[in-house]
């Protein structure tokens, strides 16, 4: 299952808030991180999170599980591992 690990700090909180409210995403606590998962693909539009570009492009620092299908200023998509 694809996952995005997000450090729970104020600047990434809008991303965590978005994921907690999104019907297709689940968020679990993992120490200082939040693990965002989806059954199929994780799809997050930057506009829906309200993150500025510099923070958005740094938002994967917590790590991932799976394959990045798309990551640009508009959208992040992470799919399951292909191997």
């Amino acid at each position: 299952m694809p996952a995005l690990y997000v450090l729970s700090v104020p600047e990434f909180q809008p991303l965590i808030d978005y994921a907690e409210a999104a019907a297709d995403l689940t968020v679990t606590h993992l120490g200082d991180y939040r693990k965002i998962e989806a059954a199929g693909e994780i799809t997050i539009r930057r506009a829906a999170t309200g993150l500025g570009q510099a923070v958005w492009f740094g938002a994967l620092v917590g790590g991932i599980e799976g394959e990045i299908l798309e990551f640009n200023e508009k959208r992040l998509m992470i799919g399951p591992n292909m191997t």
Partner: protein
Amino acid sequence: MTDMPMPALSGVHHTAFATWKPKETVEFYRDILGLKPIHAVTAKGWGRDSHPDFVHFFFAAGAGSAIAFFYYIGTEPMAEPAGPRGYLGMARHTAWTVETEAELDAWAARLQSKGVKVSEAIQHEVIRSLYFRDPNGYPLEISLTTRTPDARDEADAALTIQAMIETFADGPGSQGKTIEDMWRRKGELVDR
């Protein structure tokens, strides 16, 4: 064998750069950035025949540190002392700190009023920054800390650095590894 105690480093004393524009450099750092010249060294050579005569001048950069320049008299100017334009030329830069949003805004206004091309304020994770260049092309930054990094950030940075080192070898090649590989390794470190 006993380990020697770790000696302390207590701040940046100065950093130094070459310049072939001594007048413009002084006018920029002293008159636009308001940094006081505090020391100057002049020397005829430095022991070796090939060493040019020079003026080495220092500006107080705040909090006890200084920024300094070498003007190597009679030498051919480097075409791009800061390095090539683009990300490589931005890597080695100097960032000052300010304490309030109002000061950051005031710097943006001052630089613009003095004809210095300055970026919009960019919000990063823990700092908000203005970017501009000095007359030599050296990239400069003024930053406001918007959140002081804490133990969470320190622990996270340690894992990122571990993932980086485990993913990439030193040197020009990265053995086909990508940042995605590094992020996957980081995810494993976070989730174990």
